[in-house]
């Protein structure tokens, strides 16, 4: 119903070019409202990148699902579930990081593919399936955490409470490299982008995802294993949500069952602002990367200038519309 025109049009009208322009405009905005020059320090951009990384990881999975003509509202809760489980395994559980990460990622992928299964096998609508999964996983996170944050202040078997020191993995994930100029989480995010890119642009799975999103019946008649493709798409989204959850836990140095509320909306906004339509069969993770940065800068600029809540909300709404309009070349 609302796929953009273009295609015939020259490259300046190409989605990537448009998205980049929107991003540049946003940065220009930052240069103008630079909070007396703060915007020109690299540290600000570094912090923006750190801040946006967790959202970005969600956006990667979201891109895959949206290209398959679906949507995944459950990522925010899966993130919380992953954060809580990771904290629970490593802090009271005292598991070695490696296994903890392995288990958490597996769990994320599993819940994701459960959504995928319902979408692919039961032909349920992605929106409602993942909405249900969102509610369910949030509940699960509270069960795992017993309803409170899981910190390094743990209750020993004998009932007494002791402070265990934070496992190294927490510090590692929350640290920075290149002389403190790049956060590890940002690198994790970029790895997720690269992975997504490979899947979508280089692997057969990617072709199948585009095909299913573009015209499911046609894909089926071309021998595409539609169900498997959809399940894998949602599994991927769940996996990235788990990665994001681990990073969130590491940055908060705790597992908070309430964390990540409504992140799914930011993730979707990032994908769409990049220029990937919700109608499926189109778009790319490159666009999403640009979208992530655009929204990241928007938030950073508002925060740098300590814009009050109300202003912040109204500007965000207005700018999302403008960016997308701009995207569509209107």
């Amino acid at each position, binding site marked *: 119903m609302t*796929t953009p*025109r*273009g*295609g*015939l*049009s*020259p490259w300046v*009208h190409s989605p990537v070019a448009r998205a980049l322009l929107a991003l540049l405009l946003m940065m220009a905005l930052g240069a103008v409202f630079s909070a007396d020059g703060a915007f020109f320090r690299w540290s600000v951009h570094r912090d923006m990148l750190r801040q946006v990384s967790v959202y970005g990881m969600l956006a990667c999975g979201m891109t895959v699902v949206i290209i398959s003509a679906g949507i995944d509202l459950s990522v925010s809760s899966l993130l919380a579930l992953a954060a809580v489980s990771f904290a629970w395994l490593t802090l009271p559980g005292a598991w070695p990081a490696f296994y903890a990460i392995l288990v958490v990622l597996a769990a994320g992928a599993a819940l994701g593919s459960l959504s995928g299964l319902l979408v692919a096998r039961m032909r349920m609508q992605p929106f409602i399936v993942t909405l249900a999964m969102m509610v369910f996983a949030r509940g699960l996170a509270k069960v795992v955490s017993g309803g409170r944050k899981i910190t390094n202040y743990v209750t020993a078997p004998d009932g007494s409470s002791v402070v265990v020191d934070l496992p190294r993995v927490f510090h590692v994930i929350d640290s920075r490299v290149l002389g403190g100029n790049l956060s590890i989480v940002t690198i994790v995010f970029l790895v997720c982008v690269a992975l997504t890119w490979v899947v979508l642009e*280089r*692997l*057969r*799975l990617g*072709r*199948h995802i*585009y*095909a299913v*999103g*573009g*015209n499911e*019946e*046609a*894909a*089926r*008649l*071309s*021998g*595409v*294993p539609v169900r498997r493709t959809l399940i894998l798409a949602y599994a991927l989204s769940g996996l990235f949500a788990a990665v994001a959850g681990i990073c969130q836990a590491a940055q908060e140095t705790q597992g908070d069952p309430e964390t990540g509320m409504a992140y799914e909306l930011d993730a979707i906004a990032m994908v769409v602002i990049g220029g990937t339509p919700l109608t499926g*069969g*189109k778009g790319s993770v490159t666009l999403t990367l640009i979208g992530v940065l655009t929204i990241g800068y928007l938030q950073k600029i508002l925060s740098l200038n300590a814009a009050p809540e109300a202003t912040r909300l109204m500007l965000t709404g207005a700018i999302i519309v403008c960016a997308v309009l701009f995207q569509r070349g209107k």
Partner: protein
Amino acid sequence: MAPTSPPLLSVRSARKSFGPVEVLHGVDFEVAAGEVHVLAGENGAGKSTLVNILSGVHTEYDGEVLLQGEPRRFSGPADAAHSGIATIHQELSLVPAMTVADNLFLGGEHTDRWRQVDFTRQEREARRLLEKAGLDLSPRSLVAELPVSLQQMLEIVRALAREAVVLILDEPTSALDERGAEALFRRLATLRQEGVGIVYITHRMDEIYRLADRITVLRDGHHVGTSPAGQLPPTELVSRMVGRDLAAIDRVPPTPDDEVVVRVRDLHIRHRGLPTHELVGGVSFSLRQGEILGLAGLQGSGASHVLRALFGAADGRVSGSMELSGRPHFPASPGEAIREGVILLSSHRKAQGLAPDQSVTHSVSLASLSRYVASLGWIKRGVERRAVQDVTTRLRLAAASLEAPVRTLSGGNQQKAYLARCLLTQPRVLLLDEPTRGIDIGAKTDIYTLMRAWAAEGISILLITSELDELLLLSHRILVLHRGRIVAELDGNSATKDGIMGAAMGHAEAPGGAAP
């Protein structure tokens, strides 16, 4: 018989661009009262675009539209419709989820002064209109549940329902069978008598010469010429359209060798919803290597269902036996069928064939990706691109670039891309359902020669087409289906149109055939 009366509707030096590309370069066109004016031209020549200007679909264009001498600029389809211009567009413009009656009056609902729809009146009038058109179907039935042909008939009924001064039909028969077409032609004849001006677009030569008073040819958005049908011999018309002379194809095809590739025995397909209703009721036949076996039949004959069953995409419960070179063949999915060397080209290119936004390369290679992947499903893009290059050049597919989205291709080239996808799977059995639906004479000839070539290479082809000339031209043998059963087997060389039609009609029955 060029009409002397002044034109009802005319357009002067019409120009139209989509984005940067101009697709109509100043075209003049007119239609007079009581004449049938045929618009001919290749795919992408600009016929529909011109028609869309006349019917108010495109509101941004250069040039002048005159209705009965009055300069007009329609604000939209509604405006044109109310001015007495009825249009049947190339793509079905019905809402599947709504009832027949709702669709008939969509945009022109009968309402009281509270803007309330007068459903009883609409239903009454719908009944009248349907009877007038000789269609026996309830105004309350859902359009989605009607076969394509009936939907097309419905479009026509709707167009005629509004007292029209000018009637525009853009390839109305592409989804109709012979009988449906006949009914339409009779109707057009009477309208012509009543002095309605008719603009008619088709790619079928026989129709052109049967209907046309005048013929206007477009090529690449240019007006090539307008002349009375009588003064424009077919060869001349074709070269005007295509810009080159087409090699005539002889009728007698090379004879296939006699190794049987597909054998079907007593095939039944029962509707999943209501098992008593048989979509196919006991069909048996065999297909030999290098043979082109034509399946003739009216809408709802079940021909497509047979093909879909062989392709592992049956529309109902399948029973009976199917064999592929001696071994049982019951593909659980299209994927499995493709792996066994069987592939279907569906009659519904838009709904079941192509994804508009995918690049030509990706669309063509989709069904045969497994040939171009290394471990972990990594695609060897070099190999893929070369394979696509190769097949598309062989099919003379014309595209700006192989990276362009298929939506930017003209109808004929989209069809070629779809065919290319099937070929790339290197099939032993090609199931072709309306392979030339809606594509121009040039492209058709290309495809005919290609099909011959494939047959000669030993590929076996099952062909469904509602164009009998095509069927007669290409088939070694012809099976005629009627209501899910084979009623006749004819030899490709000796068969005649009347023979086929006679068999296909079976006993007298309501037009539209066995609609579920």
